[in-house]
């Protein structure tokens, strides 16, 4: 029954879910820091990245040992490879949260109106939902849930486009332009977090079907995407 191997594999998944929970906290912290212009909270989010990195490295090391010592095959091998990828996606999401937190400290004291806060709140909430679904569908081996991430990502992408449009309408004031420049990057970071959640869904699909495929393909869009 290879008890030790199974325990090690289970432990990797537990750590991965822990890492996911930390990313969710980092994202909420980054959005709040941005909306409330709370520099102290932004610093906490930046420092908090170490906690995510600790899990990331622990999983990397665990996978290295599992591959070297247990030679997993079939569904076990797919699970190990999927964890390897999901781990990287989560770590990148956390890095984007740090980017948002850093940018939130750099914005000039201007008032661009409530629309931006609303826009980022919408994107942030949608990203949180996507991360939860990505983690749950991975943990529950739920292909349908994983595939639903594509439609949710489309909503984040649309919100991103709306934010960019609002930035273009900010006008000529240098401080407003600086604000806009920073917010383009924030919006892009949130949009990328959504993409990484979809990538986690693709890993769930790989785990369940053994097929390597992307849910969407920018170079060969379906008619609806085009």
């Amino acid at each position, binding site marked *: *029954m*290879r*008890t*030790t*191997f199974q325990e090690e594999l289970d432990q990797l998944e537990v750590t991965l879910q822990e890492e996911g929970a930390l990313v969710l906290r980092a994202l909420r912290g980054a959005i709040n820091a941005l909306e409330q212009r709370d520099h102290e909270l932004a610093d906490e989010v930046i420092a908090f990245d170490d906690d995510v990195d600790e899990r990331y490295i622990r999983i990397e090391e665990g996978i*290295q*040992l599992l591959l*070297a*010592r*247990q*030679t997993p095959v079939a569904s076990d091998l797919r699970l190990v490879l999927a964890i390897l990828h999901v781990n990287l996606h989560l770590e990148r999401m956390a890095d984007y949260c740090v980017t948002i937190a850093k940018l939130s400290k750099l914005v000039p004291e201007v008032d661009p109106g409530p629309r931006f806060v609303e826009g980022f709140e919408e994107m942030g909430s949608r990203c949180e939902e996507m991360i939860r679904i990505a983690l749950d569908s991975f943990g529950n081996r739920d292909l349908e849930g994983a595939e639903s991430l594509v439609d949710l990502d489309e909503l984040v992408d649309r919100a991103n486009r709306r934010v960019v449009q609002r930035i273009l309408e900010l006008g000529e004031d240098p401080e407003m332009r600086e604000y806009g420049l920073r917010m383009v990057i924030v919006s892009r970071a949130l949009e990328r977090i959504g993409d990484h959640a979809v990538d986690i869904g693709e890993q769930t699909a790989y785990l369940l079907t053994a097929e390597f495929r992307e849910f969407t393909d920018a170079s060969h869009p379906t008619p609806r995407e085009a």
Partner: protein
Amino acid sequence: MSGSFTMPRVIDVAQARRESGPVQREVVFEVQGLTVNYGRATTAVSDVDLEIYRNLITAVIGPSGCGKSTFIRCLNRMNDLVPGAKIEGRILYHGDDLYASGVDPVEVRRRIGMVFQKANPFPKSIYDNVAWGPRVLGMKKNVDERVENALRSAALWEEVKDRLKKNALSLSGGQQQRLCIARAIAIEPEVLLLDEPASALDPIATSAIEDLMHELKRDYTLVIVTHNMQQAARVADLTAFFSLEVDDHRRTGVLVEYDATDKIFTNPSDKRTEDYVTGRFG
């Protein structure tokens, strides 16, 4: 630095045990400059120094003829029984020289049990196989309980409890091997030496033996010789890699590297180890 000899020995098995720092382990065997010759022509192992630690699984791996079985047999003086075997160097067991005059090899083998490649139950009942050792050694109280405990520890009780009087040879190969482990632990040894314990078994029986080893190390110190590298990778905390050196047509077994199994299989220090574990040699 003075006084270091009284310090507990330290080996870093942190990776293997997911522990955060170096771990202090009690040394069970301290092997110093061990050289074993068979007659004048063959040096089975030369100048081996290593320590074996309590409640860990130590694997000995290496190509055929590298002296790994010779090495493990020195740990309970089984080589005494081999004509022409000449042993130099020292093996300290809890600090006492195993080969000092006055040491009774039978007592050594009681404390340091051994399980061999081929399961070798006596052609007697399952019960008698396990009860024999305790009876011979005068452990006559609660023999039934002792037999049950040993069979439970060997993860065999559930499979045989209703047929203890059946002949042991009626068991499958994997069950026979676990019976031999039960027989070895019935006399309460401290150390179990396992010489290729699963090489004659199918993958399922092998897996059962490997799971059993993980259970047994709570109570025993285990040393396993295996030519199945993956088995060493799966079960061992520490791994010793032996190899062969050929000089003037004389082949000599040497200890190349001894470290945490994680290290041996992810980043060995010696190129010869790297070549062996990656399948480029041996």
